[in-house]
């Protein structure tokens, strides 16, 4: 039985047992459901083996929404625990696990796939391409991310969750202080998902550089595509650092290397340094596409060209370069000396300049525009003031001398939620509402949508503004409880209520999807928002091949100019189209990766070796496989086109 002991949860509680039962029942229900409705074949053919960027995008979206739910439940538990002084809801160990997984899940398994969804769904359509450069690699990216995320998510019912924070600093995350396999999960699950992300980066850089529609110069790309390009460049340069870092952490935990050990020449500070050399660019990987989405939304609903296109691009390039030179501002208090702190203080504050340029560009886009307050636009309008507030507190934190007061307090927690929620999350939800009709052929309900935005913002302000105050008063982050004498009680109760309102807002979003599936009118045409870029020029739903005829582009807003100035974008006649074949290999290989990761986490070496050989076998199979894709004949394209035109 010794073998099975390792799978037991080290700190079981009623909540965890209940989750086990719930997970078991859900899995059984899903399997039975698929079998009952005879959907296995459909699922395999149309989804698990697909290499279509639109479908992969939708799978990213589903994963992101599921993870948003999971990370959200974690958040509610945290706020509930802190709502009143000396609360006994969670014990300290459980609290540590919950804030660790909340951070990892929200950043890496919610926000990342959410932006991947937009990359996948939007970028090829915006640049007038038929797919990404490497469709099969794209499927591998998705499935590796998915398996990494699933591996991470089973940790709390098998073997125990990571409990050393989302930053997983050593020596706390080392074997001496984190005795469960939780930190192994952290190292290996993120590694697997990270490999997938790196491949996405390579794929999209190639796609954007090499597959733009004829005539589209780099400085004519839609702003979201620009942001995707910059973001993917950061991915390619930042993620290898994470790869090395996690490998070192894994070896410290599994093979007793001395990288981050306290004695024997180890250097635990190197973890913090390397983590943030990746971690700070990572937050720009998330926020730049969010800026791109807001640029699209604001210029669409202000009915104006984006103000300062060139300065928008330049500011993103500057931000991406600076993002690699600010990492030490995450640990000003760790004693690297005044000179280093001053340097990182200045670089950090300097980032506010290009970001400010962007804020003013959006404001000038709105200036004299015919503003239409749709749900996506409402998200953007709430984003501007709230995000600016987060940016300003960021500059406060950037001052290294003053940071000694803020460091590791709730002030910091309030700051980064203040930029991530109004910045990234609003962009994701606004973008989701904006692109929903293109994906599914009907709009989300506007009335419910606006309620969602308002509740989200009210909840957000109530949840996080109090944290600035308690943080300045000295409430430390990651502290599982506090005494009544500290006086933090009332404000934390307000924060809990705010978190509850945000949860209601999320529920409303889910209800909106349900409601709109049932009642929203179909036949909305290809361009329901009267938008400006190429993705709205093709049919809804988008056919497999995206564009029957390759679009010809002459300006930044090709579709708008086609509508208003009579540019013709679809010239020439339909020819047969070359498309990639579906393949089960990405899914199968990623499943083997899952087994490999699992056996590494629990040090089951024979299985690890077998699964590693399986992965290599998949690579060899792929190398020898002959796969030249297939052609869609002209007649079939014409038939599809007629059908879609009729459906308008």
């Amino acid at each position: 039985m010794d073998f099975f002991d390792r799978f037991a949860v080290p700190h079981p509680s009623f909540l965890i047992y209940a989750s086990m039962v719930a997970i078991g029942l859900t899995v059984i229900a899903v399997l039975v459901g698929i079998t009952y409705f005879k959907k296995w074949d459909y699922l395999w053919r149309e989804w698990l083996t697909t290499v279509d960027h639109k479908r992969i995008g939708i799978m990213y979206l589903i994963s992101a929404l599921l993870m948003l739910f999971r990370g959200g439940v974690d958040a509610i538990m945290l706020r509930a625990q802190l709502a009143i002084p000396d609360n006994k809801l969670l014990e300290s160990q459980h609290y540590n696990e919950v804030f660790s997984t909340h951070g990892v899940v929200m950043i890496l398994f919610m926000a990342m796939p959410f932006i991947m969804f937009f990359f996948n769904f939007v970028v090829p359509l915006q640049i007038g391409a038929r797919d990404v450069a490497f469709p099969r690699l794209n499927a591998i990216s998705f499935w590796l991310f998915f398996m990494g995320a699933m591996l991470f998510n089973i940790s709390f019912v098998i073997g125990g969750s990571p409990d050393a924070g989302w930053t997983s600093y050593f020596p706390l995350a080392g074997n001496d202080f984190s005795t469960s396999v939780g930190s192994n999960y952290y190292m290996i699950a993120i590694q697997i998902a990270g490999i997938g992300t790196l491949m996405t980066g390579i794929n999209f850089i190639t796609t954007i550089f090499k597959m733009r529609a004829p005539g589209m110069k780099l400085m004519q790309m839609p702003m979201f595509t620009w942001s995707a390009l910059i973001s993917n460049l950061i991915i390619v340069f930042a993620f290898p650092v994470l790869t090395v870092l996690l490998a070192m952490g894994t070896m410290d935990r599994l093979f007793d290397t001395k990288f981050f050990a306290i004695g024997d020449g180890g250097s635990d500070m190197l973890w913090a340094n390397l983590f943030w050399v990746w971690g700070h660019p990572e937050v720009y990987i998330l926020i730049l596409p969010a800026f791109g989405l807001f640029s699209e939304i604001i210029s669409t609903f202000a009915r104006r060209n984006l103000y300062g296109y060139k300065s928008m691009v330049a500011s993103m390039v500057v931000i991406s370069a600076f993002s690699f030179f600010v990492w030490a501002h995450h640990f000003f208090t760790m004693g690297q000396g005044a000179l280093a702190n001053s340097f990182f203080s200045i670089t950090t504050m300097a980032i506010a300049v290009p970001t400010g340029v962007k804020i003013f560009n959006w404001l000038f886009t709105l200036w004299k525009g015919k503003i239409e307050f749709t749900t996506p636009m409402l998200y953007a309008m709430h984003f501007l003031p709230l995000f600016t507030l987060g940016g300003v507190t960021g500059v406060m934190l950037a001052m290294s001398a003053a940071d000694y007061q803020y460091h590791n307090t709730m002030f910091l927690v309030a700051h980064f939620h203040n930029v991530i929620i109004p910045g990234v999350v609003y962009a994701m939800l606004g973008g989701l509402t904006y692109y929903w009709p293109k994906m599914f052929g009907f709009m989300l309900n506007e009335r419910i949508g606006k309620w969602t935005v308002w509740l989200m913002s009210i909840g957000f302000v109530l949840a996080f503004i109090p944290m600035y105050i308690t943080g300045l008063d000295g409430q430390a982050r990651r502290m599982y409880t506090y005494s009544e004498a500290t006086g933090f009680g009332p404000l934390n109760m307000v924060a809990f209520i705010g978190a509850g309102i945000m949860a209601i807002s999320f529920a409303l979003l889910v209800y909106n999807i349900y409601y709109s599936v049932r009642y929203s009118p179909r036949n909305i045409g290809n361009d329901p928002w009267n938008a400006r870029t190429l993705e709205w020029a093709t049919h809804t739903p988008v056919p497999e091949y995206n564009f029957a005829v390759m679009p010809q582009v002459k300006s930044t807003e090709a579709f708008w100019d086609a509508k208003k100035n009579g540019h013709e974008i679809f010239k020439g006649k339909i020819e047969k189209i070359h498309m990639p074949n579906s393949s089960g290999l990405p899914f199968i290989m990623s499943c083997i990766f899952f087994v490999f990761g699992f056996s590494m986490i629990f040090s089951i070496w024979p299985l690890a070796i077998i699964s590693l050989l399986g992965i290599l076998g998949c690579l060899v199979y792929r190398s020898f496989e002959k796969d030249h894709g297939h052609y869609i004949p002209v007649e079939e394209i014409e038939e599809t086109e007629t059908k879609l035109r009729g459906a308008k």
Partner: protein
Amino acid sequence: MKIDHSLPLEYSTEENRLKIFGFWIFLGAEIMLFATLFTSYFVYEHRTGNGPSGAEIFEITPVLMETILLLASSFTIGLGIHAMRLGKQKAMMTFFSVTLVLGLGFLGFEIFEFVTYIHEGAGLSTSGFTSMLLTTLGTHGLHVTFGFFWGLSIILQVKKRGLTPETANKSFIFSLYWHFLDVVWIFIFSFIYLKGMM
């Protein structure tokens, strides 16, 4: 598949051009990977704990042998690609085979070197320095090992299918990879071994 005959075979289709471009981006990521390893190595260089230092364990003979073998293999794969451009399949396969044999020789010496280190008490878990040294060298060595099997499967495909746009593309990309490993080795040789022995 449109084939453009004015370009070398490995660049002749759109898909091929995309793959070569994408692989250059991948090499960019690899540069970051090794840059991180080197930076970390410099951090640990003198953090030897109770273990030996670089000067105590480095020996010039196996390192020189490894260097000569790997640099020679980079030369032969260059000749292989040259032969491929001339359409000489047999010469190309010969040069590729020689490359892989040289790579195998390199790995042999590296394994010998590792065994010696471990005998001298410089194992993976001895000190921060030895952990980092073996990890940096090991990452490069794993790349060479992976490259060996990759190259082998490419030779088999060229043998079976001849020089097509597809196989030429694979061979060319493989040669980029192999040259890259050589460049990394030059850095290892200069900044780990020579610096450590001085």
